């Protein structure tokens, strides 16, 4: 039943809204993973980022797609937490917890063959301005070094629905997916190479200043 609701939500709400109210220019669609396990790394501007990324995949892939999201934000009340867990299908992550291995759930999901969606900026931050990537993604890539990492750059959704606003203003959005790569070297080198790849993708999108 919940599975059905999730598919219905994406087929009947998310996709029409993305098609008519927003409008996606997707480049490099062939670079998106067709099967799990895989890690998608994207920049974060808006709540719409997650549903947009999910909507790029065929509906049958939905059960495999797990956006990783902050437990303290999305599980703070019952309704939001039901929606986040069941409809969006998030994998809650404890930020600043004292667990032995905070990435254990993520590693387990990858072992099950899921496709994880990660926003290493940690929070949406200032819309359309990228903040530094947190290094957790490097440790996850290291722990599962055979899993491909897919960088995805998104632009425009932060204009349509920025942090702190509930009013959606139509804008076309760019999504640029880059070629997947795998863990090598050390965490610092990995983060630097991820940064370079994201900048290269950003330069392919049509980004206008928004201040």
């Amino acid at each position, binding site marked *: 039943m919940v599975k059905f609701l999730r598919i219905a939500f994406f087929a009947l709400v998310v996709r029409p809204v993305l098609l008519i109210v927003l*409008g996606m220019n997707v480049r490099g669609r062939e670079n998106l993973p067709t099967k799990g396990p895989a890690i998608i790394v994207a920049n974060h501007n808006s709540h719409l980022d997650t549903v947009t990324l999910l909507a790029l995949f065929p509906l049958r892939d939905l059960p495999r797609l797990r956006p990783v999201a902050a437990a303290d934000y999305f599980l703070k009340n019952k309704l939001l937490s039901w929606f986040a867990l069941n409809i969006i299908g998030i994998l809650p992550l404890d930020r600043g917890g004292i667990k032995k291995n905070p990435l254990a759930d993520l590693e387990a999901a990858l072992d099950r063959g899921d496709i994880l969606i990660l926003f290493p900026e940690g929070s949406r931050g200032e819309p359309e301005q990228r903040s530094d990537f947190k290094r957790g993604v490097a440790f996850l890539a290291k722990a599962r070094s055979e899993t491909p990492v897919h960088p995805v750059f998104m632009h425009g959704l932060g*204009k349509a629905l*920025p942090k702190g606003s509930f009013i959606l*203003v*139509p*804008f*076309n959005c760019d999504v640029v997916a880059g070629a997947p790569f795998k863990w090598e070297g050390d965490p610092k080198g990995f983060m630097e190479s991820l940064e370079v790849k994201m900048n290269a993708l950003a330069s392919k999108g049509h980004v*206008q200043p*928004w201040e």
Partner: protein
Amino acid sequence: MEIIDGLSNRVFWAIGAIYGLLIFASIMVAVLKRRSPGEATTELSRRVTSWWFMITIFTIAIVTNRIVSTVFLGLMTYLALKEYLSLIPTRRVDRLILLFAYWAIPVQFYFAHQDRYGLFLTFIPVWMFLFFPMAMTLAGKTEGFLRAVGTLSWGMMITVFALSHTAMLLAAGDKAGPAGGAGLLLFLVALTQFNDVAQFTWGKLFGKHKITPAVSPKKTWEGFLGGLVSTAALAALAGPYLTPMPMHWSAASGAMIAIAGFLGDITISAFKRDLGVKDSGGLIPGHGGILDRVDSLTYAAPVFYHAMHFFVFGGRI
């Protein structure tokens, strides 16, 4: 004002003729593709496929009833404005003002649908023109004010105001001659799009002398004049059937549509070149965005409507 929704048989026959032309073009492109397979012909066939979709959507919109047609034209305008606002730099503080810009579309198309000439003519050039700078002033950020108000006002005029003239043609209804307002709309849209294709084809075959190398390097005098003559000739045939104009006036309005269409095309090109983009979007495979497809119409629609209004109907539509 009473407007009757009945659609003349002439509109259906004209649409049939358009499909005839489309089938002919599809066969030509298929033959070309077989003779010289490659990126160029693949692109061409992608374009023709998109034409099938666009013409079919347009046909359904125009033959259903006038409300559906007007809503369709409004939706097309919305997509054009959205593309425009997504391409230009905007300010965070103006987010909600942009939402008002979108809401101006249903209002403008409602005035057109009701055939309220005065409101239709003043709503955007006067009221929205005054409203945007006022709202931006009250928002209280002066940095980038002139750029924001200038780009928004121009965008509203070139997309919403210009394209809403198509709905105004529809509203002319039975007063508009043998095929009604729908006949006028079909005459304008079909000739504008035909002119684009004709200019492209003549340019590809014989193009040598560039018209505007700095703005649109692919546009040539040979393409422009070939398009002009072809469009005028087609207009001479279609005009007496779809509009109240005799053959020579039809040919003249065909030429006018060709010139205005060309100017609209290069104006949108200048705007895109300034922003450093090639296509305004990726909505229509082989064509680019919606703004790339309606660029000629942004000039052709107002010019054709007002020429009809003053010279043919003497202010009666």
